[in-house]
């Protein structure tokens, strides 16, 4: 079996070596290239969201490299990402590829690993635990809090776009270079622990008042975490989403409302294949300049 799997930001190499340790041959790109994105876009519906196009492009690439099996991630809740693996499987089979599609969710990880790696559930659990600690370690390394950086910025939004630095123009590193300690509201550790809302019970209650029904994706978390950042003296919040993202664009006005309520600066980036990096950089550095000037005015 040759297993093709899309990248997942800073976790990609951990995921790859974990699967390899199970004795599986893994095909994962070292970077999501322009060509892969083009491939994905060419074979997707126009208004489907960016993570779909990007993962489809990587799957196509993997199949060309000889993959016999594919893994696609599943999101939580009722976001349309939930059935992406089905549409992708259909699309790819229509293109004439022959393969087996596996789906990765929070709930079926143990089962999946046991099946793919031909190990017992207990073995799978032990290995998974080791991987968790590696995941935590890389998160601590990637998002360090340095006292020299003057700003504190929280990032909320759609999980794949936040975490995959190849498609979000490396936003975290750029913010860090601009002098910000970045707090990423959704990490894999939180996702696996099912603790994606930061604040206490009250913050969640406040967010529930704004959005009482299940929306899917991490739309609810975007509201709750903006409340948390607002209450905890963060300088700004950046809301990252793929263009046309259902959960995130639904909560847009609610996130705006919460940000205005707590007086926290907010900037929103809608990312897709047509976004261009120079303009993105200008807006990002302007946002940081604005926060620094605001801070200076408050202090003086």
């Amino acid at each position, binding site marked *: 079996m040759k297993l093709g799997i899309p990248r997942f930001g800073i976790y990609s190499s951990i995921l790859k070596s974990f699967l390899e340790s199970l004795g599986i041959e893994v095909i994962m790109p070292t970077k999501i290239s322009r060509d892969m994105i083009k491939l994905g876009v060419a074979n997707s519906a126009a208004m489907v969201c960016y993570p779909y196009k990007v993962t489809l492009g990587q799957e196509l690439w993997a199949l060309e490299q000889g993959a016999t099996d594919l893994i696609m991630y599943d999101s939580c809740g009722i976001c349309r990402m939930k059935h992406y693996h089905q549409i992708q499987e259909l699309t790819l089979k229509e293109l004439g590829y022959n393969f087996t599609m596996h789906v990765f969710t929070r709930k079926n990880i143990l089962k999946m690993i046991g099946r793919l790696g031909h190990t017992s559930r207990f073995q799978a659990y032990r290995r998974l635990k080791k991987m968790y600690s590696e995941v935590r370690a890389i998160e601590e390394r990637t998002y360090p809090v340095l006292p020299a950086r003057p700003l504190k910025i929280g990032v909320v939004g759609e999980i794949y776009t936040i975490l995959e630095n190849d498609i979000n123009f490396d936003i975290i590193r750029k913010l860090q270079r601009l002098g910000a300690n970045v707090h990423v509201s959704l990490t894999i550790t939180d996702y696996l622990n099912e603790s994606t809302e930061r604040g206490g019970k009250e913050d969640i209650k406040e967010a529930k008042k704004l959005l009482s029904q299940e929306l899917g994706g991490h739309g609810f978390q975007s509201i709750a975490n903006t409340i948390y950042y607002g209450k905890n003296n963060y300088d700004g919040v950046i809301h990252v989403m793929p263009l046309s993202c259902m959960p995130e664009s639904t909560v847009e006005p609610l996130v705006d409302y919460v940000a205005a309520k707590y007086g926290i600066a907010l900037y929103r980036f809608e990312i897709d294949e047509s976004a261009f990096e120079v303009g993105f950089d200008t807006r990002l550095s*302007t946002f940081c300049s604005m926060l620094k000037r605001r801070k200076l005015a408050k202090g003086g």
Partner: protein
Amino acid sequence: MAEYYLGLDIGSVSIKLALLEGDTLTAKAYLKNQGLIPTIQQGLRQMPQVKISGIGVTGSGANFISSLVGGDHVDSEVIAHLVASLKQYPDARTIMDVGGEDSKLMLVNNGVLTDFQMNKVCGAGSGAMLETIASRLGYKIEDVGRIALESKEQLALPAKCGIFMQSEVVSQLNKGRPLSDILMGVCRAMVTNYLMLAKGKKLVEPVIFQGAVAKNQAVARAFEEALGCPVIIPEYPEFAGAVGIALLTEEQMNGRKTNFRGDAILAPEYLIEVKECPDPCPNECELTLLLYQGKLLAVFGSKCGRWENANALDHL
């Protein structure tokens, strides 16, 4: 002795130079962007021969130009526009900048920028829209405002896409509508497009309107109609960015010596080259090289930033 600060605003359509003596604008140049290096050289030749104490660069590709001219300070165009505006109007609450392809909206409270917005994927709320229509009709962009102000009847043109606007304009012409009404309609549509930036935001008076499009009186009137309040236009609205970055540079110098390369910039031996990064790395960056007399001055465009270090340049 008076100190001179030079501000350079690199726009997509035009390049602006502003020379400040203290806080007053003593010389200025407005040039259409026809290739970065020659245009900047031409602009610098138009500046008086004075000793420059600092030079700042803003706009698209500011870092690149900064290493060409020996810039002392680089900042985003939003901040430059803000600083210029607040210098003249300290109680400004809303600042609108409409440029050739970019449009920006800044909200200010007590002299501090609280929110900003820039156009993201569409230029139909910027000067490009007017320019397209004007050239389609065979008029100069400078005349649009004058003609549009003669409008007698209000014409409802659909706002949105600048290309579709062309066919709308032609169909209105076919119906025999006067040109002035049509052009005023286009100005209104542009304003409506621009105000998409203000979606969900409250625009508070006083409103400052700058950028080259602010020279168009018809657009100013359309803004006043749409906002229901007067808009204030500075004397030289198109130089706001250049003035702002000059002021910021002055603020940042603190007795530092300027890096300004002076007349060396005017030499003809500058060359821009585009090359793929030689390192085998999945990023596959496209690098922009700035050469002077065959020697590498600076490299831009690498994601990892390794070529920004001067010592690394020898290995390229």
